[in-house]
């Protein structure tokens, strides 16, 4: 059996992780004020030759990983940028991601799926102080006004009317993203796993294991059990595709009147990999709910069987239950790792704008661990 290369990680992602270790030495992070952001925007626009002035800068709610500000833009810009959103890295967060990559993938899917247009990127934070990206503002809600639910759009009740309208759009977007032509997509900061190899799977285990190596403060033997299992069962990916990486309830907007999906958001975990990975992520119990009969509903809207059948019909691909199972374990591994490591470190060191949220979210490890135990039990029984 060939030796596994446990250092094989996308170069850009590895660099981000190591840069973060250095940045941590700067100490706690104080959330930016609206006036500080306005000054930064003026610097950024001047550097990038954008002849426009930001007005009415104000912080947006939510955002466990990025600071977000909305503002109006007056000047020489296209109509879709008359109102914009600044998406900026805090010093540290629950995940470490790249604004340049996020902008590249948004530009790659623009026109194919409902996503915001990109105005500009401050990839190294030279103007804003932290890496940032500016996109056109798109209206909509993440859940029905009366849908309840918890942080980050979790546990919302979508209701029959909304579910019926959004289900085909949700799956259709999924298929369209996976159909992006990687040869022409200009994803310069992304690495491409080799077709017909285990690269796609290996890079994922390696990346999240590296996060643990660098940022784990507490012991969690269950994670190491999953780690060794994942390395033992790496699946081959025949044809890598563009993945959203965080495709779930809470990460898309829709118009509450027309029930049209207006935007798919939060592309920061996008990468190239196995299509089963996005499916498995959607099937994580935390991102759905159960109906009165106890049947799991993806995004609190539809069954896993419906998702698989519709996806197969739209794409011509066949879902392999074994590969899907592997990526379910991988999803658990990824989610527990981010909550169990980076989230706790940022909360401990005060390096995020939402330290209280990160400390609170760490409690979700208990629920995620239950799912991982169930998944591993299927294989180890």
């Amino acid at each position, binding site marked *: 059996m060939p030796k596994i290369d446990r250092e094989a990680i996308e170069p850009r992602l590895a660099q981000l992780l190591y840069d973060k270790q250095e940045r941590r030495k700067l100490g706690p992070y104080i959330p930016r004020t609206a006036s500080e952001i306005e000054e930064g925007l003026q610097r950024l626009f001047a550097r990038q030759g954008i002849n426009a002035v930001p007005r009415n800068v104000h*912080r947006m709610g939510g955002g466990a990983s990025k600071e977000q500000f909305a503002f109006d833009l007056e000047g020489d810009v296209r109509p879709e940028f008359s109102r914009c959103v600044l998406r900026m890295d805090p010093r540290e967060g629950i995940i470490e991601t790249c604004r340049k990559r996020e902008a590249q993938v948004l530009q790659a899917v623009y026109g194919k799926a409902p996503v915001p247009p990109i105005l500009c990127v401050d990839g190294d934070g030279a103007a804003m102080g932290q890496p940032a990206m500016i996109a056109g503002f798109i209206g909509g809600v993440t859940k029905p006004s009366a849908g309840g639910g918890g942080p980050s759009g979790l546990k919302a009740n979508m209701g029959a009317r909304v579910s019926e309208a959004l289900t085909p759009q949700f799956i259709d977007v999924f298929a369209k993203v996976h159909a992006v032509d990687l040869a022409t997509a200009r994803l310069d900061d992304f690495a491409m796993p080799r077709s017909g190899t285990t690269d796609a799977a290996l890079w994922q285990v390696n990346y999240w294991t590296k996060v643990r190596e660098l940022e784990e403060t*507490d*012991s969690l*033997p269950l994670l190491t*059990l999953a780690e060794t299992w994942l390395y033992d069962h790496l699946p081959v990916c025949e044809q890598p595709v563009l993945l959203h990486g965080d495709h779930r309830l809470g990460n898309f907007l829709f118009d509450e009147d027309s029930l049209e999906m207006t935007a798919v958001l939060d592309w920061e975990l996008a990468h190239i990999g196995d299509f089963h990975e996005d499916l498995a992520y959607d099937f994580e119990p935390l991102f759905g709910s159960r109906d009165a009969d106890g049947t799991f509903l993806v995004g609190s809207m539809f069954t896993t069987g419906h998702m698989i059948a519709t996806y197969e019909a739209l794409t011509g691909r066949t879902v392999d239950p074994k590969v899907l199972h592997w990526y379910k374990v991988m999803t658990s591994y990824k989610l527990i790792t981010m909550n169990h490591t980076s989230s706790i470190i940022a909360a401990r060191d005060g390096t995020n704008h939402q330290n209280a*949220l990160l400390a609170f979210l760490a409690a979700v490890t*208990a629920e995620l661990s239950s799912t*991982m135990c169930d998944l591993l039990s299927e294989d180890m029984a």
Partner: protein
Amino acid sequence: MTPNPTIRLASLLQTLEHVIFPAVDQKNSLAQEQCGLVLGQLRMLIQHMPYFGEYHGMCFADLAETVGQLPAHAGGEQSAAAAEALSATLGEAKGINDVLAAYHLLGRALEHLMRLAAEDGEPAYRRAVDSAVLAFSKRQSLRARSWFKEAGFDHAPETLPTLAEMFGHGFVNLSSGG
């Protein structure tokens, strides 16, 4: 000894909830969200306060018992060294007063063994270690879900014991594999 920490925390909670938070700018969405999180976390802490020692003790006792009952090592040199180190760590951890620190010390030694057993452990030995870890993890997950039930993430909170039941009434399924 007085006032006890629970009373001190409860007084903070009441002041924040009824005096300070209502004065926070309603238009400041970040500040408003943080108020809700602070209240939720403080309420959980107040619930946890009487039980911290017992909770950590229960988790450590189960981990120590799990490690103590692992089968004799079978396999190559790397996992043999890790198994020996784990035995030594078990003895060391039992002598540490800070039970939370002892738990993580012992857990890390167990994780080291798991990784090396995957490299050169006999398949049957590795299966036994992994099975013991999975069984422990199921109990630990149930304990943690009960501990964090009020955070609102659980899929079946109604099936979980209260903290008083978990510690005060000998909820044996959570305490060990026995």
